């Protein structure tokens, strides 16, 4: 399967995009008010943090690893940001860098452990996940509401796109991250080394690539993205809370994989992951528009949509494979 999707590498991406469009069309036909620019834009507004997470995760997964800590890091970041702002009353200009360093440091640590003691990413980041969440509990089990001009501004500001449509600052941040990541993955040594690493770590090593540096950098970057996402999430929620983003690591991984990245590593695109996020987002939106689903039907519906989506994607890929 790996070989196949490698040979037709752009295919999953294209499949994903077209399927997204199809879904959007279905939604528009089925529900009133679905076919509107704002509904589309809200996909970004409501998932800005997920997009940022997905970007970081894409690098990790392409390199053949995985990072389960991201969800908890969001919680921790939000907690740190909140407590520093509200309890310590620090200015944003101090809070932001500190918050960003939180995930970055955790990521760095994970990368170090994974490489130098060659531990399995899954487990190390699982520990990271426990740790980050645990630390946020230690800060406080209560949720901390944030009311500071800066955060209110970041949260409240709407960037109008005409026709009453708008996006938030977070969306802009997310898009910048995406562009940056696309560039890195396609036009820098680091970016390419990530792919090589995912293809075969042993080969990468024998080809004399800086495996250690690359690997550690990957997890550090993912950690950074998690922190950034954490901030964006904090803008979104205007609060710090130890239970924030529970289980979001899975949503992220799902988005990335749906976006056509191979979990076995070596193949994938940042852009794909973005589409992946939009897909999960649109599934959520359709559920809400449906507006009658009870808790369990919601779960089932998500599963079913996910299923149809994934299978369609596979089918398209297989069909278009020349015999």
């Amino acid at each position, binding site marked *: 399967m790996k070989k196949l999707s490698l040979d037709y590498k752009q295919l999953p991406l294209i499949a994903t995009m077209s399927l997204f469009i199809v879904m959007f069309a279905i939604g528009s036909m089925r529900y009133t008010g679905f076919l509107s620019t704002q509904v589309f834009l809200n996909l970004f507004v409501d998932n800005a943090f997920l997009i940022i997470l997905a970007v970081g995760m894409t690098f990790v997964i392409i390199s053949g690893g995985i990072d389960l800590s991201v969800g908890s890091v969001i919680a921790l970041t939000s907690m740190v940001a909140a407590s520093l702002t509200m309890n310590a009353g620090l200015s944003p200009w101090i809070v932001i860098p500190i918050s960003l360093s939180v995930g970055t440091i955790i990521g760095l640590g994970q990368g170090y452990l994974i490489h130098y003691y060659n531990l399995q990413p899954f*487990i190390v980041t699982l520990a990271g996940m*426990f740790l980050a969440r*645990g*630390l946020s509990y230690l800060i406080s089990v209560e949720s901390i509401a944030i009311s500071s001009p800066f955060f209110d501004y970041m949260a409240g500001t709407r960037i109008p796109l005409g026709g009453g449509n708008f996006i938030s600052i977070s969306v802009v941040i997310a898009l910048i991250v995406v562009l940056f990541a696309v560039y890195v993955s396609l036009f820098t040594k680091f970016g390419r080394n990530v792919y090589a690493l995912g293809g075969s770590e042993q080969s990468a090593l024998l080809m004399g690539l800086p495996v250690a540096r690359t690997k550690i950098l990957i997890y550090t970057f993912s950690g950074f993205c998690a922190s950034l996402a954490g901030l964006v999430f904090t803008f979104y929620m205007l609060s710090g809370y130890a239970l924030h983003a529970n289980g979001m690591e899975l949503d992220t991984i799902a988005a990335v994989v749906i976006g056509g990245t*191979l*979990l076995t590593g070596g193949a994938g695109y940042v852009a794909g992951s973005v589409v992946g996020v939009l897909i999960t987002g649109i599934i959520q939106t359709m559920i809400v528009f449906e507006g009658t689903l009870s808790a369990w039907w919601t779960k*089932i519906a998500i599963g079913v949509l996910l299923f149809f989506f994934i299978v369609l994607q596979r089918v398209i890929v297989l069909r278009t494979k020349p015999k």
Partner: protein
Amino acid sequence: MLKSLMKSKLFWPIVILVIILLINLFFDRGFFQIEVRNGRLAGSLVDILNRGAPLMLISIGMTLVIATKGIDLGVGSVIALSGAIAATTVADASEGSLAPLFAAIALAIFVCMVAGAWNGFLVSRIGVQPIVATLILMVAGRGVAQLVTQGQITTVYYDPYTFIGGGYLLGLPFSIFIVVAVLLLALFVTRKTAMGLFIESVGSNPEASRLSGINSKNILMMVYIFSGFCAAIGGLILSSNVASADGNNAGLWYELDAILAVVIGGTSLMGGRFYLMGTIIGALIIQSLTTTIYSIGIPPETNMVVKAIVVLIVCLLQSPEFRSKVFGSFKAKKAVESEDDKGVTLS
């Protein structure tokens, strides 16, 4: 002798387990005591086995899945599903006859194996990546479970049902016997038939296995079904133990603990060699850790941190690189590779 023992995959997990137990001893002198209370063996060790039963079961199934380079995120939901189905079947069954019990068990196990087959189908036939394929069931399965219980907590008033997870046999919790049975089954199938060999080869190099005339698709199918089977039994034990089924919370996050157990046990997520005994010990480590946390009065908000630290220590101790750095024991960093050929026999 010791040297070969050190080489065994099981050595470090066992050491860790012992350490955790000793820590308990430190807090509670009578930790290792096992007394007979009204005809039953009682004591922390028994409890750990008893409580750990579901996790051990799930992990056994997970081990085989992981050995094929796969992963099964669905188990948690399958646990809930199995409990829900069984509980609703016996919910208002009349005492006396055992028929409802067996009906419930059969039905639950069947449905869950179907669920497993579903995963296997997606992975082996459609070629969906395991993590996504099983993610579907992880989400939807819990939904179905809640659908079955209508989001209520279905309480069971039918006593025989509580025997599965609460009953005692020969003074030991019945669940322990179930684990042993399943474990023996797994050991037999993987070590006394060629199944183990096939699983390992498919996990290690699928293409080469195909060219050697192994039907990897069916192998995949089977491991996922087996994983479903294990989850089903685990679910039965869990729900029977509290005489009720909770579609929403039963088996929540079990998949992570199971994977953790497998990896602690020495099986690599990259597939290939697997160590069932290691997995069992891994599961026991996790369970005794939880019990420890509860019994030595750690404030709940620090649970996570403690768990994180322990997990890290466990992994580090198992990493030859780390050991050589700390104890300076092993020489070449590649040398470790040949540890692998030991331990197989042990597991």
